[in-house]
Structures are given as C-alpha cells and as structure tokens.
C-alpha cells in the first residue's frame, strides 16, 4: 500500500534518508535547510534504524566527519545551504580525490556572501564544475518536487557507490520549504549492498591495509589518478536523467531545472494555449548533463532559452551543447526573487522563434 504524506521538501529528504538506510548524518544549522537535521533529531533515527545523527561544530567539521565515515563504507550524508556548502568545498575536494561515496544536499539561497535566505539557483557553477580545488566533478541531481526530494536520496547513494564519488542534491529554498504530497519510499535495511573491499575498518590478516587518501606526492601517480577520475566522470554519461515536456513538436525549447522547471511547466501550458509550440527539457541530473539530448533538440527547434534563478549559469552548458546551431537565450531572476510564469512568458514571447 502506498504511504502518502504531506511534507516539506527538507523533511522529505530527512525521512527518505532514514528509509534509505543511511548510517550517518553530520550537519550544522543554516537557513533554509535546518529542517533536515531538526526532523532527523525529532524522529530519533537511532531508535528507528540505528542511524547516527550528529550536530557538528561547523560545516567544515561536518563534511570531514562525512569524509571519515564514508571511508568506512557506510552511507553518510550532510546537508547545508550555499555559505555552508562553500565552507565544505575543501572537504568535498578531498572526498572526490579519495573517491568516497556520500551525499551532500545544498538547499541553495541567494548570494554572494551571506546574501539572502530566499531561493536561488546561483550555485550551479559551484556544483557542476567542481567547486573546490582540482579537476573533479560531483554527481549532481536536481529535484523539482517534494517527491523527487525523497526519491533522489536513495538514487544518490546508488550512483555515489556505483562510481565511488560524492553525489550532490542541488535544490533551493523553494523546493525545500514548500509542502507537497509525497509517496514515501519503503524502509530499507541499514546494511550495505555495495562493495566493501576498500574500506578502512581495521586491517584483517587476509588483506593489505586500506588507506583513504587523496595525496600522491609522485606526479606520475597523480597523473594516472587524474586520468582515472576523468574516465570515471566521462562514464557517468550513461546515467544522465532528464524529463521532456511537450517536446515532440516544439519549435522553441525551454531548459530549466528544479524550481525554475516547475515555473516553466506553467509557461509551456500557457504558451501552448496561445498556439506557440514551446517545450521544456528539464535536466534531473546536472552532472552528467544532457548534452547529447540538447544537441539533438538543437537540430529540431528554432531557439532555446535557459531559465534559471541566476544571472546565467546553466545557459553556458546549453550553449556548449547547441554549439551555435540555434540562438540560445537566458532568462533569470536574481537576489532571491522568483520569476513568475508571466515574467518568463513575456521573455519567451519576445524571443520566440516559431512559425509565425
């Protein structure tokens, strides 16, 4: 029987984490994501599943707790919002370098600096291009509903362990704070179904010691390690996920993820009612990015517009995919303000290149 609930996106992440059999959560309060740890603490997950939840002294500490715990093969996660995620970047780079699986949730707020606590999608570059130092990538998932907030938790761990790479759920204050109906996933047992041969849990007689490190003083070894990482990132293309709405006959394509995608759904609906063949391609994974699908669509539509709560970040990846074949526009809202469907609609009608 379906188990339905009405909850906030942040709560859905927390509940889904318990149900995904997550072993540990380490976090630090920050608006607009504090409900994640609050919900976890209230739920007494140590009684429900044995999950450890610890409030750390800083985001720096919490990401390094994740580093240590992830190195023991456990399912561990943290969550924060933009300034906190910036503090974590060193640790995330280490986690990527040491090839550890884990989940990081970023409920984005407007920046730069302390910025605003209102929703934003301005951390796209930080999330998809690395964020910390060195050549690395995260697996980045972008939920557009409370349901996907719940569903992407287990999916993140599946991908994180498949590639031994940190996964990041990139969402924002809008999806995190809004309440929707959500079908809760079933409770998984808190046992690891993944390879444990590399973990640091004590050297037994039957194996060499395991070491979790991102250090290679020998540049030949670091070179080989970098090549291996790059090949891994390339191979992630097979797990690209996106949703296409009204794309089959579209002659103008909107590209949006997360909260902007929800707004663009309405834009597509209204545009269609006015006879304009507008479609929406919604990336569910931002890394890997649906480059091939966008390139394919570029051969069929007359123009594209990337709609983001930023000054134009994802639009760069769209342009790379389109490679000059059709005009690519950007429409964005800044500073924690949210564009309305009417705002986007007006921009679409200005730029629309249809059959008229």
């Amino acid at each position: 029987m379906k188990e339905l609930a009405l909850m906030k996106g942040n709560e859905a992440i927390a509940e889904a984490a318990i149900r995904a059999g997550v072993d540990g959560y380490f976090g630090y309060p920050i608006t607009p994501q504090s409900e994640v740890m609050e919900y976890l603490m209230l739920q007494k997950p140590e009684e429900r599943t044995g999950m450890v939840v610890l409030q750390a002294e800083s985001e720096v500490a919490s990401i390094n707790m994740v580093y240590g715990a992830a190195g023991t093969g456990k399912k561990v996660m943290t969550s924060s919002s933009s300034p906190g995620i910036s503090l974590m970047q060193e640790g995330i780079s280490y986690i990527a370098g040491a090839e550890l699986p884990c989940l990081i949730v970023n409920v984005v707020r407007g920046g730069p600096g302390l910025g605003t606590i209102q929703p934003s999608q301005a951390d796209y570059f930080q999330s998809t291009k690395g964020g910390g130092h060195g050549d690395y990538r995260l697996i980045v998932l972008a939920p557009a509903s409370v349901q996907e907030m719940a569903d992407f938790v287990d999916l993140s761990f599946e991908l994180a362990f498949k590639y031994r790479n940190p996964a990041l759920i990139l969402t924002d204050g809008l999806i995190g704070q809004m309440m929707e109906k959500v079908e809760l996933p079933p409770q998984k047992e808190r046992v690891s179904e993944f390879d444990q041969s590399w973990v640091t849990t004590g050297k037994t007689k039957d194996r060499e010691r395991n070491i979790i490190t991102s250090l290679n003083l020998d540049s030949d070894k670091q070179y080989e390690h970098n090549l291996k990482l790059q090949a891994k990132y390339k191979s992630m293309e097979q797990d690209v996920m996106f949703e296409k709405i009204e794309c089959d006959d579209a002659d103008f394509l909107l590209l949006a993820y997360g909260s902007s995608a929800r707004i663009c759904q309405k834009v597509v609906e209204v545009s269609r009612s006015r006879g304009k063949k507008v479609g929406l391609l919604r990336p569910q994974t931002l890394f890997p990015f649906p480059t091939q699908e966008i390139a394919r669509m570029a051969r069929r539509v007359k123009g594209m517009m990337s709609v983001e709560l930023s000054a134009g970040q994802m639009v760069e990846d769209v342009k790379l995919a389109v490679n000059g074949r059709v005009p690519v526009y950007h429409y964005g809202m800044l500073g924690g303000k949210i564009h309305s469907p009417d705002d986007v609609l007006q921009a679409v009608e200005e730029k629309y290149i249809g059959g008229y």
Partner: protein
Amino acid sequence: MELNKIIKPENLVYKRTPLMTDANLSYCPGCGHGTVHRLIMEVVEEMGIQEDTIAIAPVGCSVLAYDFMDVDCAQAAHGRAPAVATGIKRLWPDKFVFTYQGDGDLAAIGTAETIHACNRGENITIFFVNNGIYGMTGGQMAPTTLEGMKSSTSPYGRNNETMGPPYKITELIAQLQGTYYVTRQAVHKPGPVRKAKKAIRKALEVQRDKKGISFIEFVSNCNSGWKMTPNDSNIWMEENMFPFYPMGDIKVDGELVKSP
C-alpha cells in the same frame, strides 16, 4: 664477518616492530616522529588490536604516517583529523580510532575540531606531537613556538606582542568535561620513552573502556627546523621547551591532577 654470525639469538635484545612497515621513514635523522610511531604500533601489537584499529594521518610531516604504520588509515585535511575520527568512531564505536597530529595541524588550523571533539568526549585517542614549528613546510612559526624562538616566519624571534604568545592547548582541553586522560610526554631518552609507551597503553585502554577522549602531547624536537644537530636540539628542548611545556599527567581518570 657475516651478519648472521654476529646476530646470535642470545644477543637479540631488540627487533623491528612488526606493525611498522618496511618503508623508509621520511623523517629527518634525529626526529622524534619515528619513535612515537614505533611506540604506538608496539602498543597496538601488544594489545592485539590491529584488526580493529583505524589511524588518521594529518597534514604536516606525518602526512605519510600511513606508509609506516601497518593499520588501516584515513589521511585527513589540515586540522580536521578529530572530525574525521569522529565520523569513523560514531559509526564504528567498537573500533580503535586515533589521530596523529602536529602542532600546526592540531593547535592552529584545527583548533575548533580539537576543542569540540574533546568537549563532546569522542571516544578516540589524540596523539599530538609538539615540536614548536611547522616542519613540513620548512620551519615556519607554529602556535606552540616559544617566545623569542626563531623560525622562517619569525626570523628575529617570536614577538609575543605582535605575533601572540605560544599557548598550551593540552592544558586547555584538560579543562573540558569530555577529556578523560590528558598527559604530556617526551621520547628523546630511554626513560621518557618507557613512560611515553605506558601513557600510550593507558590512552588506548581508556578508549577500549569507552571512558572518553585520551590525549597525549609528545614534546619533541625538530632539529632541521630548529637548525641544530639532533643532540643539540634535544638539549635545547630540555632547557627551553620543558619549562614551558612541563612533563607529566594533567588529567587522570577524568580528574585534573597537579603537573609534576
């Protein structure tokens, strides 16, 4: 004469510690790190806990500690070893988890992680090697560099007024409720080595008995960073470091004790 003829079983009074690997130590001749490594590994062997031990290597001279200690190891970002250890220990409460850190790592960049792991009473062990200098990066001033002591970033000597005075983080963390056993040791002579080994044993037993944090500071030398011969550095350490960083137990069984 062949080596085998010299090494008669009855003459064997010392052997290589089995839990030290065959890798050549990267430490300078005369440095105390190798001795501390060996003592920890001897105790791990004697307690029979190798299969349950996870070490955390820091950033600093001992960044490659995992090359030398034959136990599972995680290498941590600069200063974050107590947080990394916390993550491991919380999920594996029956394993032995220890950090191995220098003064820059533990008492400067990692101050927050050190204090909060100690305050929470994480059931881990912290081994802290204090040689009053950043050795790995070439002898810069550390939080524990003595007043007037020269380093590459205090070339005219540490000026307490402009650079801040050295501080005793070991005494500081001993004030916290979560710490159970806090002591200061040295490894430059046979006597101190024997005492230090006993302290290491006690620290890991405290962890075994789940009593809270055990914390051992080893006041040590850095003959390269101090620009002295190994012997001179040990004499200088006794004359200058020991008065400021006095040897002995600071907290035992959760109770503060007078420093000897």
